[in-house]
């Protein structure tokens, strides 16, 4: 996983609540095993009925063509667990999402892919959204995970909180599987214990064939 220390980029205001993964990565966009993850992001909102680009959708506006940070509302990423909804962000250069809140599985998928999920304190969130709207893509913001700080035009730096383990994992770009495999002995021990105490859990046999 690509480590995350700091990211500077254009902040895109998409200030709606409840944006779900069907909006972020519609299932119809995932018809191929390897779809174009850049194109699938908000595919439906990006296009008008005739298939042409909708110039009003924020990511289609010239200033937001190279986004780096997405700024959005409550419960971002609700719905399906599809990870394409995170891969689409990365394919577009978005490495930070500042939301009022995140759905659980989506936030987990962000951490798995080196995409930083930020939730600011309520008062700061409002102020930050206002700054993002005011600067309107003309100048970038910098999100520094080491210092837990967002800096940019229109005001002083803002501090954000993130659980220490999540922060460490992103900064070090940990291979999550490798991290867990350090506990292979404990896993094997657990399996041995379970096989003795609750053996029906350690076997899943089809009784018709075996």
């Amino acid at each position, binding site marked *: 996983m690509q480590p995350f220390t700091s990211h500077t980029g254009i902040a895109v205001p998409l200030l709606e609540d409840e944006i779900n993964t069907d909006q972020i990565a519609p299932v119809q966009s995932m018809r191929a095993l390897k779809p174009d993850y850049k194109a699938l992001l908000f595919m439906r909102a990006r296009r008008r009925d005739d298939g042409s680009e909708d110039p009003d959708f924020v990511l289609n506006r010239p200033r937001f063509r190279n986004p780096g940070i997405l700024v959005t509302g409550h419960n971002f990423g609700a719905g399906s667990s599809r990870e394409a909804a995170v891969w689409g962000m990365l394919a577009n250069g978005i490495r930070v999402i500042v939301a009022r809140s995140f759905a659980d*599985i989506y936030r987990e998928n962000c951490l798995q892919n080196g995409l930083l999920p930020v939730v600011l304190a309520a008062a700061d969130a409002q102020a930050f959204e206002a700054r993002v709207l005011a600067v309107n893509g003309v100048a970038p913001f910098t999100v520094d995970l080491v210092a837990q700080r967002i800096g940019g035009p229109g005001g002083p730096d803002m501090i954000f909180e993130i659980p220490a383990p999540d922060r460490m994992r992103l900064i070090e770009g940990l291979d999550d*599987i490798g991290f867990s495999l350090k*506990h292979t002995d404990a896993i094997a021990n*657990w399996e041995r214990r379970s096989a003795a105490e609750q053996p029906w859990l350690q076997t899943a046999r089809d009784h018709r064939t075996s």
Partner: protein
Amino acid sequence: MPKTLFEKIWDAHVVAQRADGRELIYIDRHVLHELHAPHAFEQLEKQHRAVRRPDLTFSMQDHTVATKPGRNDETNPSGAAFLKAMRDGSRRNGIRLFDIDDPEQGICHVVAPEVGIVLPGATHAVPDSHASTVGGLGALAFGCGTSELAHILATQVMALKRPTRMRVRLDGRFGAHVSAKDVALRLIAELGVAGARGSVVEYSGSAVRAMAIEQRMTLCNLNIEMGGRSGLIAPDDAAFGWIAGRPFAPRDAMWERALAQWRTLASDDDAEFDREHVLDCSDLEPQITWGTDPSQVLGISGRVPDPTAFDASRRAAAENALAYMGLRPGTPLAGVPVDRVFIGSCTNSRLPDLKAAAEVVRGRCVAPGVIAMVVPGSTTVKREAEAAGLDRVFRDAGFFWGESGCSMCAGGNGDRGKPGERCVSTTNRNFEHRQGPKVRTHLASPETAAATALLGRIADVREVLSGNA
């Protein structure tokens, strides 16, 4: 120290604590589907990592399979690559596959309990947000993404933060033609789409005890629609009886041993919950969604709400929802004309769901111009329904009777509505464009869906059956 049911299962599955504070939770059963597993197989192979416990892992073909009779890999052309990659990946890794032509093929959340893969007190993982369906049998199930899927394949554990504890108590008795679907929709309306975020929800109370196992699965299935991390119900004799004799369930002496342990699976009387919610089901009428998220719910006798009556934070969403749904404030929902009806999905496609719908349909006809579909949740359900003659009831009435799969729930197999169509659906998400571009989805129970198909407009099943519609 008294414990909740969730804590008992969780604590019994803690393998270790990682340096980042996450707990490694052993996964007893891992159920995969073809939309996401192929990517994880590829990731593991690139990393030269093996699947740790293929014997505890099961592969299902459900999201992309066609539902047309006589289907094969190519019937849904965009599904072929997924089905093949799943087949190849499962074979390479020694994982039992329920393939498209398997007599037990079907939706992962329907097949796993049906064949006895799901056991009380076991932990489950599925790369799908509706994983907690199997909580209806007292299993603790977590939905996950593709990276976590690969993690579980390689390690057989999930690295999780401990969720909070929530209990929803359902009191009272259901009225006629009110089901778990109606209760779940009412709960989502009351608690909101993020109301259970971060929590494992235990459903309890007399109304839950009275529910058939399939109804309990419907209730737990919809737990994610209020943001819950997982949802479950303490197993009882009804659950044990339901599991007994299924092909993958323990037998003989092992069954007796398991049963003794399963009887301890309940929250202690004085166990603490971080949050509790109570709903009296006695006066509940059939429920249906009016908007574009599953919390926008009305009783079937209700009228479309006026967004100006909402608080400021929800007004814009309500206005957008009404614009998308093509509805005006004050309109009674019952009576709104529909174009489609879909009965199926992991939420409502088990045999009792189809029986309930068939009883409404029997001897009647689908309204002219309405496209009505029934897609059984598994090939087993389909076979059992056919043995009971339900397929004839539906087909004679003008319904399409399909092969099993996820079908129109998310349209991943090409089963979709046309732009502007209004669809009453027994599925779980009424999000914009989910069932096809500009399709307007109303979530409801199988009986409400069936009644709606007959009238060609949103219907109160109680009026249809009493002859007053």
